């Protein structure tokens, strides 16, 4: 039979596309498959209400790690969001063209620095500095500062792109009304770019939650709910990275449970980001 090459091509790319499309499902499936044994045995509650995290002895309290992830992420967002947005405002409304371009390039470079290098720098420079203020140095604060540096470029670049999409007529219009630069930015540009800014924040949150190496290297990794900024802390991701190499049985399974938690939160965040974008399109 004479086979139409166009048809073969169509089915070939459909096949490849299918593989790309099911990867996410595969990831979820395998996380679940590996997490299932311990979930069946002790239930999800054990991960929050057990006394301690001693997975080899059947104690699975992940709460200190969950809180560790939460505090570091929250802290980084509180710092990085305003700094990132102000960076974008700088690029769009204050800097001369060449400086804006240069600064964008710098942000791209910053986004491309490997997290292990951030962690290394944090370990050798930042942690000793914090140690001088209050030992041990490896702490929630160190994690927050490093994460801030890491997610700031993401926020700044997305925010910059969404400011660039604000119609210039809005801006010149307000200038004609004699509104000051500062007033124009906050009164006109920021509201107009709102959905883009929110997307930037959401995606950056996802990155901060999932970041592993840098926080692993600067946070001290003690399994204890932190009570202050200078306490060492272990995040969910660091916990996986530290223990996965030797974990067996239920222990391994419990680590996959924490991976599954991360995955669920990230999928939730992405869904929210998509919703924000869609809303922005409807009302923007």
């Amino acid at each position, binding site marked *: 039979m004479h086979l139409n*090459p*166009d048809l*073969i*091509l169509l089915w*070939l*790319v*459909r096949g*490849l*596309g299918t*593989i*790309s*499309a*099911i*990867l*996410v*499902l595969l*990831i979820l499936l*395998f*996380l679940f498959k*590996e997490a299932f044994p311990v979930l069946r045995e002790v239930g999800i509650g054990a991960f929050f209400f057990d006394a301690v995290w001693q997975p080899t002895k059947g104690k699975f309290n992940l709460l200190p790690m969950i809180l560790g992830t939460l505090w570091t992420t929250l802290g980084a967002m509180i710092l990085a969001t305003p*700094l990132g947005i*102000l*960076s974008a405002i*700088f690029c769009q409304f204050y800097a001369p063209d060449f400086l804006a371009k240069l*600064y964008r390039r710098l*942000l*791209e470079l910053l986004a*491309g*620095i*490997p*997290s*292990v*290098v951030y*962690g*290394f*720098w944090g*370990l050798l*420079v930042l942690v000793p500095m914090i140690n001088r203020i209050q030992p041990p140095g490896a702490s929630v604060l160190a994690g927050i500062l490093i994460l801030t540096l890491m997610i700031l470029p993401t926020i700044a670049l997305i925010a910059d792109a969404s400011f660039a999409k604000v119609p210039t007529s809005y801006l010149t219009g307000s200038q004609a009304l*004699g509104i*000051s*630069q*500062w007033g124009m930015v906050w009164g006109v540009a920021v509201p107009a770019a709102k959905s883009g800014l929110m997307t930037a924040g959401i995606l950056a949150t*996802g990155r901060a939650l*999932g970041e*592993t*190496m840098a926080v692993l*290297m600067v946070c001290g990794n003690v399994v204890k709910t932190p009570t202050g900024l200078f306490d060492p802390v272990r995040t969910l*991701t660091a916990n*996986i*990275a530290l223990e*996965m*190499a030797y974990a067996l049985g239920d222990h391994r399974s419990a*680590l*996959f449970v924490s*991976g599954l938690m*991360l*995955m669920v939160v990230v*999928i939730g965040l*992405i869904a929210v980001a*998509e919703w924000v974008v869609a809303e922005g399109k409807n009302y923007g």
Partner: protein
Amino acid sequence: MVKQKWGDRLGTGFIWAIPLTITAIFLWIIGDVFWHGLGQINWQFLFTAPIDAGRSGGIAPILVSTAWILLICMGVSLPLGIGTAVLLVEFSDIKTGFGQLIRRSLDTLAGVPSIVFGLFGNALFVKVFGLGFSILSGGLTLACMVLPLLIRSTEEGLRAVPQSYRLGAASLGISQTKTLWHLILPAAMPGFVAGFVLGIGRAIAETAALIFTSGYVDRMPSSWLDSGRSLSIHIYDLAMNISNGNANAYGTATVLITLLLMINALTSWIGATWTNHHFKF
């Protein structure tokens, strides 16, 4: 000129201070690494094996492992990525449910934390496929990770090809396959190359996804089924687990950052030379 108010002036000052600070920190990080690392780098560092868990000696096997991991990663993700991008752009599948589904899952894939990719790679490639801690497992895991990036960039390349080429070729009765092969893919080359370079940049920077897929072993790999240590894992291990490993960690970080800066320069160069559609045949 409107007279600037106090708040305005304060705001302006603040807004200039932020990029200055960030630039300073960037220079600090890069400067710190190069300052301590450049002195470590010589032929011997690049071409000999690590001695004493990496405290002395070089990084030759680590460079080789890294190269193999990247090769497998790109070798697998390129055909997948190009095929998917062709499906999304060239066949009217975008607006259909299937196209939407692919796009949605790629958006999600792009947000999956690298440590989760590591768990997945460990469960699937290391355990189910029985590849063990190996260069192959690591490369395949990274292939999944860079896929969304690659597809995005390839798609952009394909969309930049003027529709008039497609219409012109179709109106001459040229099949879609031939049009794609002789006309569209060559014209979309900048997109592929950009995607390729970005993908390598992302893969070479990755650590967390590799720790329990490609493993730690710092010997020269003799096959894809051997465990191999990447540059980034080497930095991590020297910094965290080996006392007195910092000097060589700095050296390795310098190599890694230099590679990344080169990749970055290459990307901008491609962007600059090819945006004007200067391709000849």
